[in-house]
């Protein structure tokens, strides 16, 4: 394990380029100046550069390794998106600057709204949610606001399939709703009879991911939409798996009333170290008045087009603001540039190659003896392998395979989600991987399984080559302590 920068600290050592000017403190009254030294590391500029460069080299990242983390859509982030988003006119724009100084930026945001509407079949888009989970919160808040505006106050139940992302029931609960769980059938589709028995006069809506978290397309989606709408509820589309259907079929056409899109997944903005994300929301006609603000509006004036922020004045029924400004501007720009580069035809290509890659991987792993969770179904952009039989016969669990893959220089797939499938790996290759990379991953999977089955190799201690070995996740959960305590000087 690498030392912390604090451990490299030596009293009095300084990085002069970063050092504050002494004169800057002059205007602060003596009484307010601190007398004790701040607990900050003291290191030279070169030491600091080396420290953080080394840390960055310890990372697994999409720039260095195949990253088939199911449900996360870890596709390549084109360098051009980054370069163009950093143009001085964008990067130097102050969020509090006058609107007249940011017309270029605002026009990009307006076009992004329009493109997202077009590709999802929704009637309005707000870009302001800062992440997928905030998009979900905005979506369910809009469903609540819609029912409340109709004086339909009894509707407080949100239906979630048992395979839903954990954020779905969490979001419903955060919005003051009661979660009603609906089981999944053996073929991976929602249990339609159970759904019919669950909807009723208290149904506020249903939250669905389609293709589902099980990596299959919900085939009866039109009937699901009809049943929920007839009961007076609305349909929420969790955009986690939008990559699979991009340009092919639109949530708006399936009957969804509200959708959140993870721009950091589908539209290739960096995932970073858990952020910043972007969870733009799209709505159907009836939810337009409730969109979170601000939204970018366009008017035609005698001098040409003018773009402006729409706020409470324009959308008095809005669920309100989600952040101080209007979302993660830099992330939104990258998504905009990506969409412009890919173009309308490219959207379809994304879905086709994402799906082709997933089905190729699934077929090859299945041929190699791995058990698919839903062998009768065509995979969407991701699929599930279950290691149930390997776990029983040779004690090779999903966690063991995940850790062993790290030693073979592949990031692990998502493990133990969805919970419905025992010992599962959720594998999503995305469209940006080559056949050679996919073949390499299959070879690594086969090597691991063969070594365990035929040579009795145990991977309980894997990984061996990583900066940290197998972590004690029980201890991490029970004794969570992330605070660095420097030694007393």
């Amino acid at each position, binding site marked *: 394990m690498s030392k912390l920068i604090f451990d490299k600290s030596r009293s009095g050592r300084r990085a002069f380029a970063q050092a504050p000017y002494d004169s800057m403190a002059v205007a602060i009254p003596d009484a307010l100046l601190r007398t004790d030294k701040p607990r900050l590391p003291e290191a030279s500029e070169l030491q600091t550069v080396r420290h953080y460069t080394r840390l960055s080299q310890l990372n697994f990242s999409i720039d260095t390794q195949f990253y088939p983390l199911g449900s996360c859509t870890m596709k390549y982030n084109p360098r051009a998106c980054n370069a163009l988003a950093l143009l001085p006119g964008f990067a130097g724009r102050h969020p509090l600057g006058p609107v007249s100084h940011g017309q270029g930026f605002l026009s990009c945001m307006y076009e992004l709204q329009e493109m997202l509407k077009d590709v999802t079949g929704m009637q309005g888009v707000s870009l302001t949610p800062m992440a997928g989970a905030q998009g979900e919160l905005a979506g369910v808040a809009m469903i609540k606001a819609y029912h409340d505006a109709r004086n339909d106050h009894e509707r407080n139940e949100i239906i979630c399939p048992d395979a839903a992302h954990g954020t779905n029931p969490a979001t419903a609960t955060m919005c003051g709703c009661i979660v009603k769980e609906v089981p999944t059938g053996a073929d991976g589709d929602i249990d339609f009879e159970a759904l019919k028995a669950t909807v009723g006069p208290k149904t506020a809506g249903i939250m669905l991911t389609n293709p589902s978290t099980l990596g299959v397309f919900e085939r009866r989606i039109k009937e699901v939409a009809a049943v929920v709408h007839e009961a007076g509820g609305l349909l929420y589309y969790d955009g986690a798996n939008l990559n699979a259907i991009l340009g092919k079929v639109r949530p708006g056409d399936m009957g969804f009333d509200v959708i959140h899109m993870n721009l950091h997944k589908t539209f290739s903005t960096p995932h970073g170290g858990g952020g910043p994300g972007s969870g733009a929301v799209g709505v159907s006609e009836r939810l337009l008045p409730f969109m979170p603000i601000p939204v970018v509006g366009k008017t035609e004036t005698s001098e040409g087009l003018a773009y402006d922020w729409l706020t409470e004045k324009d959308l008095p029924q809005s669920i309100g603001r989600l952040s101080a400004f209007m979302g993660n501007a830099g992330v939104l720009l990258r998504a905009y540039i990506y969409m412009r580069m890919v173009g309308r035809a490219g959207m379809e290509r994304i879905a086709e190659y994402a799906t082709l890659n997933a089905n190729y991987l699934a077929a090859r792993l299945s041929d190699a003896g791995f058990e698919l969770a839903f062998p009768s179904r065509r995979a969407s952009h991701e699929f599930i392998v279950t290691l149930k039989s390997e776990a*029983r016969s040779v004690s090779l669990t999903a966690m063991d395979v995940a850790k062993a893959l790290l030693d073979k220089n592949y990031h692990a797939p998502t493990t*133990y989600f969805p919970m419905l499938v025992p010992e599962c790996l959720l594998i999503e290759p995305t469209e940006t991987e080559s056949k050679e990379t996919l073949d390499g991953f299959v070879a690594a999977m086969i090597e691991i399984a063969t070594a365990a089955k035929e040579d009795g190799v145990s991977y309980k201690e894997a990984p061996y080559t990583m900066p940290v070995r197998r972590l004690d*996740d*029980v201890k991490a*959960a*029970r004794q969570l302590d992330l605070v660095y305590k420097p030694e007393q000087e």
Partner: protein
Amino acid sequence: MSEMPGDLLYTAEHEWLRREEDGSVTIGITDHAQGALGDLVYVELPELEQDLKNGGEMAVVESVKAASDVYAPIAGTVVAVNEVLADDPEKINTDPYGDGWIVRIQPSGRIDEGALMSPDAYQQFVDELDE
């Protein structure tokens, strides 16, 4: 796999029930359930004297893999909770049918045994899940 006790009743939600001499019912989760959840790190218990509906939320068990609601298999009033689990949730992993019990309920009505499984029926239920 620990021995499945023969004197308990079981549910499809992988809970077990034991009738006590004073008429109360002790409830926990089965060995199969703890195995599927993995190492437990946290247990949320109900309040004493809390009234529970049949099928209502009774407790939450959280493992390194997932958090899962535990539903009351019968209606009644909570007369005891296993306080030890607050500090030692792993008791459910090590002794699911003994020290890892979760709640004791005083049933509010007759227990519908038809809705519960015998040890043999539960064993068969689990075997089918494993296939």
